[in-house]
């Protein structure tokens, strides 16, 4: 297919359709309304179903039903809506259901604001809801990557029988960029038929029970052990990241993800012209986090800088990635304000000049 200029939200919707997503359930919230709006007219064209649910609580439970019946399903929302889905996502994880959830993050806490943010990092990667579970978290930095990752998300969800979350900020939803969909795209995993789905029981297979309840503690312990094994496999096989710049000899290594990483890349190019060598590690999977890659690049760099649209939630993972405790510098904008390349340039120069205050001490 030829490249087409698309708004991020539309590209995410079309990517779901291309991936064979059959049903979308969602509740309006800015700044992601263009995703359900697009799908409300697009899904019926391909024999799919769009339902505007009464709330995010209902949306995620509709996903629970439709995914349990064996179909590819998606919802999208923004921060407060994802909070409302928490219980349902935990149920999906417990019942091993493949669902795809898009979070176009906005600034919080509470009602916060409608402008871009990355303040749901902790929520997505560590504390999505109650119970011992994990979801794969994919963070695109461009519209093309958003389209690609959404399609991959469906394969990963089916393969692991687990929720997969795609997180972007408002820019990912609103930007327009050329996007290409590949007609001959193949699933990135070998996917077995969904013999576990509730499709009506003719007694020719075990009865399908989509369920997260285990009253026997020994059984529930085993269930948790089995889930953990799955998460271990994800940690081993699904880490994704990209690296940029002077990896072997950086004065400063930046760790940033999503659209913030693009801003940082412009800064890196400008700094190179000034003779300052900067490298960058961009996590594409926020969970599993690319600890090895950060450790590797950081070990060769003098200083470490984390740039985020949050008060420093990712710093915790960067700390964990390091061999030994080292100072970390940090730059952020909050509340929907954006980081500019100039700010990153100034920050890197300040680090070099020894005038930047570290946020995490050795």
């Amino acid at each position, binding site marked *: 297919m030829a490249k087409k200029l698309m708004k991020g939200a539309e590209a995410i919707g079309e990517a779901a359709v291309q991936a064979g997503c059959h049903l979308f359930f969602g509740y309006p919230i800015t700044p992601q309304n263009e995703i359900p709006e697009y799908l409300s007219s697009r899904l019926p064209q391909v024999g799919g179903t769009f339902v505007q649910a009464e709330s995010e609580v209902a949306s995620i439970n509709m996903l*629970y*039903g*439709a*995914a349990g019946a064996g179909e590819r399903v998606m919802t999208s929302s923004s921060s407060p809506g994802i909070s409302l889905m928490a219980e349902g996502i935990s149920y999906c994880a417990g019942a091993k259901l493949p669902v795809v959830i898009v979070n176009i993050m906005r600034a919080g806490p509470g009602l916060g604001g409608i402008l871009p943010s990355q303040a749901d990092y902790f929520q997505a990667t560590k504390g999505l809801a109650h119970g011992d579970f994990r979801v794969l978290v994919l963070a695109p930095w461009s519209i093309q990557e958003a389209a690609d990752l959404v399609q991959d998300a469906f394969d990963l969800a089916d393969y692991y029988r687990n929720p997969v979350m795609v997180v972007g900020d408002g820019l990912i939803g609103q930007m327009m960029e050329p996007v290409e969909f590949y007609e001959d795209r193949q699933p990135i995993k070998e996917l077995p038929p969904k013999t576990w789905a*509730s499709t009506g029981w003719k007694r020719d297979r075990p009865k399908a029970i989509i369920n997260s309840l285990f009253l026997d503690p020994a059984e529930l312990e085993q269930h948790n052990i089995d889930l953990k094994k799955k998460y271990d496999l994800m940690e081993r096989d699904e880490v994704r990241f990209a690296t940029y710049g002077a990896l072997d000899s950086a004065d400063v290594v930046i760790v940033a993800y999503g659209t913030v990483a693009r801003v940082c890349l412009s800064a890196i190019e400008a700094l190179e012209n000034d003779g300052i060598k900067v490298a960058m590690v961009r996590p594409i999977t926020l969970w599993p986090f690319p600890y090895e890659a950060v450790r590797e690049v950081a070990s060769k760099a003098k200083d470490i800088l984390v740039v985020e649209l949050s008060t420093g939630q990712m710093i915790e993972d960067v700390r964990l990635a390091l061999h030994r405790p080292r100072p970390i510098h940090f730059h952020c904008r909050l509340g929907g304000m954006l980081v500019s390349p100039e700010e990153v340039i100034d920050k890197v120069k300040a680090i070099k000049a020894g005038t930047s205050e570290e946020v995490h001490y050795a």
Partner: protein
Amino acid sequence: MPEAVFVRPDSLSDVSTHYCPGCTHGIIHRLVAEVIDELGIRERTVGVAPVGCSVLAYNYFDCDFHEAAHGRAPAVATGIKRARPDLAVFAYQGDGDLASIGMAEIVHCANRGEKVTVVFVNNAIYGMTGGQMAPTTMPGQSATTCQMGRDVETAGHPIRVAELISTLRTPAFVARASSHSPLAAVNAKEMLRRAFKYQVEGRCFSLVEVLSTCPTNWGLTPAESTEWLEKTMLPYYPLGVFKTPDGDDRAPLPRKP
């Protein structure tokens, strides 16, 4: 050869339930299963269990099942039915599940006219969690969280779900039945049969509220419980068909079983 005159319905699993002696959840299960058998739809029926005493319904019905989060069974049923419209989908819910935490889901499921059937078991109490006040608890009825009896000044009056749902403009079949006597059960089965039939015919959403007993948390014997249901609940919760897809917006036809 001896002839079997009373057998387990094909749609019920060959297991014993965990319900307390005298609890009518089991009777209601059986009525639903008999209806599924008689309509010949077991192979394409998927049930949704609530969080409540009937949380383990997936072990008792011999068909595919989902166990839903507390109150969300109508949303889960919506998801299943929209994914596979050829299935017959029913949700089985208690009164805390449906009329308290899940009120939004049931109202909107009915209002969208989802072609699913909801079996709503009203026992005027939270059974599973140990007898707390439900939205359906009778005025003056004591529960562990209203030990002096439900005070309508602060807790409001019991919610009449069948009446409430029947005010929605979207065509539906809405009825209330009871399980406290053999005659009532025969009527309840007829209501359930109509409810499932409307769904299978692709006609409309259907809900049957079934009055039920909870001897354990009412603190009564099984026999006293059926008597209490009849004396206390029946006058407030009239039985009958409140709405049909053929009728007007709302056509209450209270009748004694």
